[in-house]
């Protein structure tokens, strides 16, 4: 059990957004409008939408990185209301991947992964072992002591993925993880994410505007002007 939220209530989804609204600039901009969404354990969903439709805000809100203006978010059936609980969830249950990778530039690849483990107070020796394993899993065993500046975009995103799964999350949120990559690297990164989702049973919610990548997720959520306008199985999904 994670402190701040209770165990999943019988049949409760992993994450549930209920009537969530998010406005900016004193109500002048509505980024999310009455969002109702459930993510079940092991789900694999693509969030599709045009630029500015609210996809990134949705991911931020789902990971507690951004606050909501109204509505409710429940983790395993329990409302999450404070940042302290969100931080604990991000350290233990939720992994987040960003489009810009957001690696710390002064730390090597392995140190960036260790940062996630340090969030949970994992001892240094164990951090090193676990980070080495993770970087090996994402195919970066030979680049682990390089600074982010010396890595390609695809390699950086692999480091970010290794960091996001360091604490064995049950939900992985990816905000346009392929947005800054060429098509070959984008495909490889999606392969990796789907492999992680499949192998670990991690729920994956991936924002993308690339239809072909979205087709690889069995569930698609379509967002337009801050509202969910479609949520269902992906026709002819190819994975996972």
């Amino acid at each position, binding site marked *: 059990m994670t402190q701040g939220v209770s165990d999943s209530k019988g049949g409760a989804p992993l994450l549930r957004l209920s009537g969530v609204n998010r406005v900016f600039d004193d109500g002048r901009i509505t980024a999310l409008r009455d969002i109702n969404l459930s993510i079940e354990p092991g789900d694999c969903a693509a969030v599709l939408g045009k630029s500015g439709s609210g996809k990134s805000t949705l991911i*931020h809100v789902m*990971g507690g*990185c*951004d*606050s909501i203006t109204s509505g409710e978010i429940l983790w395993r059936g329990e409302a999450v209301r404070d*940042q*302290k609980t969100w*931080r*604990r*969830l*991000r*350290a*233990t249950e939720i992994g*987040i991947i*960003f489009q810009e990778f*957001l*690696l*710390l*530039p*002064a*730390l090597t690849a392995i*140190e960036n992964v*260790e*940062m*996630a483990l*340090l*969030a*949970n107070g994992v001892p*240094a020796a164990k*951090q090193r072992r676990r980070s080495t394993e993770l970087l090996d899993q994402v195919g970066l065993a030979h680049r682990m002591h390089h*600074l982010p500046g010396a890595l390609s975009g695809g390699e950086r995103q692999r480091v970010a993925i290794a*960091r*996001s799964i360091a*604490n064995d999350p049950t939900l992985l949120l990816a905000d346009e993880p392929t947005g800054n990559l060429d098509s070959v690297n984008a495909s490889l990164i999606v392969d990796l994410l789907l492999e992680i989702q499949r192998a670990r049973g991690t729920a994956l919610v991936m924002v993308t505007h690339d239809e072909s990548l979205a087709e690889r997720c069995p569930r698609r959520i379509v967002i337009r002007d801050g509202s969910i306008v479609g949520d269902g199985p992906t026709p002819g999904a190819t994975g996972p």
Partner: protein
Amino acid sequence: MNLFTLAISNLRRRPGRSLVVSASVGLALASSLSLVTLADSVGRNAGESADERGADMLVMSRNATDVFSSLISQDAGARLVSLEGIATASGELIMFAPIDRDRQNLITGWPADSFFWRDMPLVSGRVPRPGERAMVLGEGTAETLHTKVGDRFTIFDETFTVVGVAGYRSAINRSMIFVLLPDLQEIAFRQGQVTMFDLQLKPDAAPDAVKVAVERAGAFTAAPTDQMLARDRNIQVMRAVSRSVSLIAMVMGSLSVLNTLMMAVQERTREVGVMMAIGWSRWRTMSSIVFEGLLIGVGGCLFGVPMSFLIAIIFEHLPNVEGILTFRPTLTVLIPTLGASIAICAIGSFYPAWRAASMSPADALRRV
């Protein structure tokens, strides 16, 4: 990895930034330290000058507010030397007096048989002989006035011959002119009067007992050299002024350090956002940044302390300062200043870290 190795990695992998921030902290520290040292020197130099000449205790008029307002009959010397524990009592008349070239200089007159003449560290010439109008210059005065043994000088329009140059170390003694007591009494119309008595105590004498005995013997106040000068009104005023200056210097230095640290942390708000997005607690995030601030503070100290010594050396050789004040950073100045600097670095990094860690990760990540 732990918070310490994280801070080290962050500093080591940004050498230019770390160096510039530490140097800024160091410069602020060096300027503060120099001014505080200057303030400290004002009072210390006065005490050192009496100590250096070999006096154990000073006796002044009980009602005097400062050394220049003290007047005692020269005859009191015999009474003092008869007291238990006192080996010698040398009368001394001290005053600022006009000399050549429109200058005022500190002049002191000692009897010909004073132990001061016997122990004077001459670098050239000799001490005055009874009956001759002669003077010994402190080395600083001799250098400033470009004067050597054999030159003539006037004090109160009376001509004196320079017969020696004394190589004292303390700034006040270096800038002093030494003459025979009867000569100074005569030209200053202070016949039979001295400013104070400088006592040398017997080896087994108890200073507290001597002090009590002296103060019972007449309208005197007696104290070891450093304590007597601490009560001097002029020195109290100088100390108050210099402490005010050093306080201003400390405040300015602190603001400079705070500003530098705040800017350095603020530009990393986005990194704070990343830390929080991957689940770092607010406490852990702030600790890592404050830790880095402390290391920058230590780096600043390593840079600032040698820099302050360098400034002190340069100051001592400035034409208007040379021979008047010495700049010697002491542990009593260094320790609190360094402690304050490191504490300010912690505060300077804590505040922006607290602000950044109080944002939502999304807000922090939106910062450029």
